[in-house]
C-alpha cells in the first residue's frame, strides 16, 4: 500500500430517500457561504413567514369596506394606530392588503420558479445528454420561446384564458424555461464526457440511471440558481400585469394595490403610505432573488471572485 488509511467509524448506509434529500439540501445550502446570499435568503424567509401567517398578521379582510366610529366611510385615512398604513379611497385597510399581497406574490413566485426549474432542468438534461435531433428540436423551441415579448404575451394569454394569477405562472413558465434549459444543457455536455459517466455505462447503467443518478446531481445547484431568478421575475411580472389592469380582480397583490392607487390618483393626494410600501416590497423580493443567485454564481464559478 502506498499510504495507510486511518480507520473511520463505519456509518450505516443512508437510505435512498435521505440521500436524495441530502443532495437537494446541499444544493439549496450552496449560497449560504456568501454574505449577499444570506441577506437575500433572510428577505425570502421574512416574506415567507409573513405569507404563512398572513391570517394572524393582517388585522382585517383586505377587501372589506371599513367605516369610522361616526358611521362615515373610512376613506383616504392617514396611518394611525387603528390603520397602520391608512386606508384606500374605498375605505380598505392598506396594511392588510400588503400582508395578503405577500401571500399572492409568493404563491406566484414560488410556483413559477418551481415550474421553470422542472421544465428547464428536464429539457436541459434531455437535450444535452441525448443530443441529435431531440437536442435540435428542443433548442429551436427554446429559441422561439425566447423571442416572444414578455408582457404582451401575458396580456394575450389573459385574453384567451380568464384573468387569473395562474396565467402569470403559466407565462413565466413558458417564457423563462429556455434560459435554464440552455445553461443546464451546456453543463450536461461537459458532465456527460466525464469518465465516471462512461464508467456507469460500461457497468450496465441505462440512460435513465445515468441521467438522474450520475448527471443530474451535478447540475442541481444551477437549477436552483435559475429558480431563484425566476421567483423575482414572476413577482415582477405579476405586479406589472396587475398594474396594467390585466391581473386577477379577486386577488389582492402588490401590483393590484399599485394599480388601485394609480387610478384613484393617490400620488396627487400625497398618499405615499399607500403606494410606497408595495413598491418597496417588490424591490426587496426581486433584489433578494438576485442576491441569492449571486451567491450561487460565486460558489458555482469560483473564478468570478478574482
Amino acid at each position, binding site marked *: *500500500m*502506498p*499510504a495507510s*488509511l*486511518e*480507520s*473511520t467509524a*463505519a*456509518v450505516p*448506509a443512508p437510505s435512498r430517500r435521505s440521500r436524495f434529500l441530502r*443532495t437537494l439540501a446541499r444544493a439549496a445550502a450552496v449560497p449560504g457561504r456568501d454574505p449577499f446570499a444570506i441577506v437575500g435568503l433572510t428577505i425570502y424567509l421574512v416574506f415567507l413567514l409573513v405569507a404563512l401567517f398572513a391570517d394572524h398578521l393582517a388585522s382585517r379582510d383586505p377587501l372589506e369596506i371599513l367605516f369610522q366610529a361616526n358611521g362615515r366611510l373610512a376613506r383616504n385615512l392617514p396611518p394611525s394606530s387603528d390603520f397602520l398604513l391608512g386606508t384606500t379611497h374605498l375605505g380598505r385597510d392598506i396594511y392588510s392588503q400588503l400582508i395578503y399581497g405577500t401571500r399572492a406574490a409568493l404563491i406566484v413566485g414560488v410556483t413559477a420558479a418551481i415550474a421553470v426549474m422542472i421544465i428547464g432542468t428536464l429539457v436541459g438534461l434531455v437535450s444535452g445528454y441525448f443530443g441529435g*435531433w431531440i437536442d*435540435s428540436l428542443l433548442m429551436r423551441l427554446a429559441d422561439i420561446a425566447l423571442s416572444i415579448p414578455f408582457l404582451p404575451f401575458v396580456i394575450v394569454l389573459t385574453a384567451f384564458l380568464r384573468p387569473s394569477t395562474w396565467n402569470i405562472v403559466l407565462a413565466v413558465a413558458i417564457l423563462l424555461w429556455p434560459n435554464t434549459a440552455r445553461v443546464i444543457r451546456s453543463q450536461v455536455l461537459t458532465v456527460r464526457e*466525464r*469518465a*465516471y459517466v*462512461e*464508467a*456507469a*455505462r*460500461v*457497468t*450496465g*447503467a*441505462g440512460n435513465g*440511471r445515468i441521467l438522474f443518478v*450520475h448527471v443530474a*446531481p*451535478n447540475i442541481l445547484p444551477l437549477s436552483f440558481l435559475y429558480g431563484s431568478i425566476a421567483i423575482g421575475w414572476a413577482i415582477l411580472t405579476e405586479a406589472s400585469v396587475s398594474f396594467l389592469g390585466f391581473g386577477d380582480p379577486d386577488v389582492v397583490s402588490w401590483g393590484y394595490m399599485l394599480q388601485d392607487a394609480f387610478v384613484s390618483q393617490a400620488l396627487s393626494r400625497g398618499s405615499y403610505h399607500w403606494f410606497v410600501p408595495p413598491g418597496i416590497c417588490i424591490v426587496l423580493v426581486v433584489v433578494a432573488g438576485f442576491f441569492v443567485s449571486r451567491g450561487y454564481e460565486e460558489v458555482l464559478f469560483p473564478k468570478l471572485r478574482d
Partner: protein
Amino acid sequence: MLAGRHPVLHAVDGVDLTIRKGETVGLLGESGCGKTTTGRLILRLEEPTTGTIRFDGTDIVGLKGPALRAFRRRAQLVFQNPFDALNPRFTILRALAEPLVNAGIDRAEHRARIERALSRVHLPGLDRIAERFPHQLSGGQLQRIVLARALVLEPEFLVADEPVSMLDVSVRAGVLNVMREVRDAMGLAAVYISHDLALVRYVCERTLVMYLGRVVEDGPTEAVVRDPQHPYSRALVKAVPVPHVDQSHDPLPIIGSVPDARDPPSGCRFRDRCPSAVARCAEESPALREIAPGRRAACHLI
C-alpha cells in the same frame, strides 16, 4: 439546415484481431493511432460503421436491452484517469456497488462481492474506505478501486486503457503487479492499451502495433520487441530511451509526424515516413499477413 457537412474520419479502419480466452494482448501505438477507439469498440462504447465484433461467438454490434446488459457483465473497462473515473459525489461503497446494482444482483450479496474484489486488488477492508469520497484517496488507491469496480461483476474480459499513465511512477509497478495477479487468479482475457512499450512488455503475451487506424504488426511481445519486422515497429522500439546519461541517441529512422487521419496517404499509410518505401507502397495497401508462425505484419517488403 441543421447538420453541417463533416469530413469523415476513419479513426480505426481494417483492424482484424482475435483475443483468445485468458490471453493478454497489448495495443501499442502513438496517440491518435486509434488504439483507444479500438478498445471502446470492443466494449461497445462506440458503434462501428461497418464490421463485426464477436464476443464468445455472438456479434455484439447492435446488441440491445438484456443482451447488452449481459455482455456488460462479462466485459469491463479500467480507465486511464482514476481521478475522473469515479463519481465525486459517490462514496467508495456506492461506486463499488454501482455495477452490482446495474446488473440487478441481490443487495444481500453486494458486501461479500465487494470485499472479494477489494482483497483481489490488495486494498484494506471495506469498512475503512466505504464512506470515503474519491478526493480523500490517493491516485494509486483510486486506480485499485477502479480496478475493483471492474472486478465486482467477475468479468471474463478486461480492457485497460493506459491504466497507469496518470499515476506517479512510484505506484505504477504496484498497480501493474495487482493487475497481473488478478489476471492470473481469474483467468481474464485482457487488452492493454498503451503507448508505453515497457508496460506492454511487462504485462502482455502478445502485442499489436497500430499506426493511423490500422494494425501494422502482430506477434508475441518478446518477438516483436526483439525483432520488429514492420518499419514502424522498428522505429518504435528504437525510440525507447536507453538509461545512459551521456550516450548520444541514434537518429530515428523515421521523420515527420503522423499525417492527418481525415486524409491518409494512398496505399500504405506509413509510406510517407517510411525509410524504405517503394513505388508499390503508394499504389497498394499492404494486407496484414502471416510472416512467420504466430506473427503477422502489414508491409510489402517483408
